[in-house]
């Protein structure tokens, strides 16, 4: 059962004050939950936030489910997001993604057996000139080849 840390609760309280409406704080607060909970937002966090922020659960749940950057299921330590949009496709983004899938033995949104890696295919990350590219957690890795990508991920492990 997930619970926000006391700093997390302070953060939520501060964010509520930060914007003109309390509702605006939902996204930052969900980010905070995601950060505290190993990269994903558990459903029970919605109830907790709802209580802290005094907003209906449905509003928070709507936001949680609308945006793709909130993970609704557990993910690996390294969240590898490979861009598979048009410019990256033309430069081998999909080959890169399937290579990584094969290399780490994961499909779809699975977590690798050692709990380290989740590889997802995502839409444009705005780094089209350096295709193919991937984002590992918060950082971009660009101009990749399949081998280079594998070594980057292995290094980060």
């Amino acid at each position, binding site marked *: 059962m997930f619970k926000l840390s006391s700093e997390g609760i302070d953060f939520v309280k501060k964010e509520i004050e930060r914007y003109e409406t309390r509702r605006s704080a939902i996204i930052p607060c969900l980010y905070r939950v995601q950060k505290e909970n190993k990269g994903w937002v558990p459903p029970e966090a919605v109830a907790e936030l709802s209580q802290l922020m005094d907003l209906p659960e449905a509003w928070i749940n709507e936001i949680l489910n609308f945006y793709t*950057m909130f993970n609704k299921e557990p993910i690996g330590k390294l969240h590898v997001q490979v861009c598979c949009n048009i410019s990256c496709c033309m430069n081998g983004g*999909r080959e890169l993604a399937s290579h990584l899938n094969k290399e780490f033995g994961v499909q779809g949104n699975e977590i690798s057996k050692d709990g380290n890696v989740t590889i997802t295919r995502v839409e444009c990350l705005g780094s*089209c000139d350096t295709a193919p590219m991937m984002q590992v957690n918060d950082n971009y890795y660009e101009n990749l080849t399949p081998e280079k990508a594998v070594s980057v991920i292995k290094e980060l492990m």
Partner: protein
Amino acid sequence: MQVKVLSEHYDKPEFQGLEGYKKLGGYVELEKAFKMDPKQIIEDVKAAGLRGRGGAGFPTGVKWGFLPDNGEPRYLLCNADEGEPGTFKDRMMMERAPHQLIEGMIISSFAIGSKKSYIYVRGEYDESIRILTKALDEAYKAGMLGKNILGSGFDHDMDIYVGAGAYICGEETAMISSLEGYKGQPKLKPPFPAIEGYLGKPTIVNNVESLAAVKYIIRDGVEGYRKHGTEKSAGTKLFSVSGNVVKPGNYEIPLGMPMKTLINDLCGGMKPGRQLKAVIPGGSSTPILTAEEAMKVNMDYESMAEFGTFLGSGAVIVIDDSNCMVDLLGVLMHFYHHESCGQCTPCREGTGWLNKLVASIYKGEAKMTDLELINGISNHMMGKTICALSDAAAMPALSFLKKFREEFEFYIREGKSKVKGSSYAQMHH
């Protein structure tokens, strides 16, 4: 050749910090602007012919002119939710020159009388967010933001709002919804944001590049700004070139430059042994151009319109002859299906339907009549919804089908791609 107005100092790392920025001529125009009449700034921006750099190309000054002339609080939102596939200019601008944007925004806020502005950055741009946050801190400390900026008596607060992964939030009313804490779904117009926007107050939403360019209109004056570009498409613009060219990247060129020059000279042409096949001129939503058209078109709003397409966000996606168009349309349709917000029925259902139909082509399940169906669906998605996302999905579908129909027919007939070596369609998504 490139004309570097905005990007003059982008290659200098010190341009990122306040010190270096000031040294290279930063915040000079802010002081200059404070001495001007706000109405005059709006007039200047109108006269300079600055058009929105985000995609729609709506004249920025005209947009500002829609604001009601009353004392109501108003907001400026900077649209840094750069999601259009192929576009990466705003990211560079925010990472290389955060203060340029901040200065542009303060000037614009001064012009429209806004006391609070937000920069809505897409969540994936973590680096940009870090740099912008730091720059905002610096600006506050240096008195560029807050109460009584530089002794002008003008108060202004600026904040960053981080999105969470939704292409649709790049649409201005969707961005407002998202900022208000709703799902990022576009709002019905009318009322337009300039009348009722963020929290029901008058709101102006402008692209990063448009706002940064305001600084240079102040610096060079209307005439100086109009020196580059054409009569109707004034100034310079950053173009994000990606795809199969030798040197992809951001290029700042005066509007009106032939695309041929951009691709062949600046970007070093196609990769060896490859031929140009097609160009998507303004981000994935704009209708595609064939190689011949691409060689004739100029990089300005009017010339693009002549060829039935748009300058869009300035994302030039260059496609060479190793690519299968069925495959690429599949990629795009998957994207729009993934990103439709689900509000309006034609878009919600239409994007899904198109995605399935195109997928059925490379699954070998399509019929020849399905091409007509794709046309029919696309035509009935255009202009029927609240925002332009359904148009954005329909336009590529229509133009791909119109200009590369024989490839689609070949695929349906033969069950394989017309382009040899294009194996990808089989292992699509």
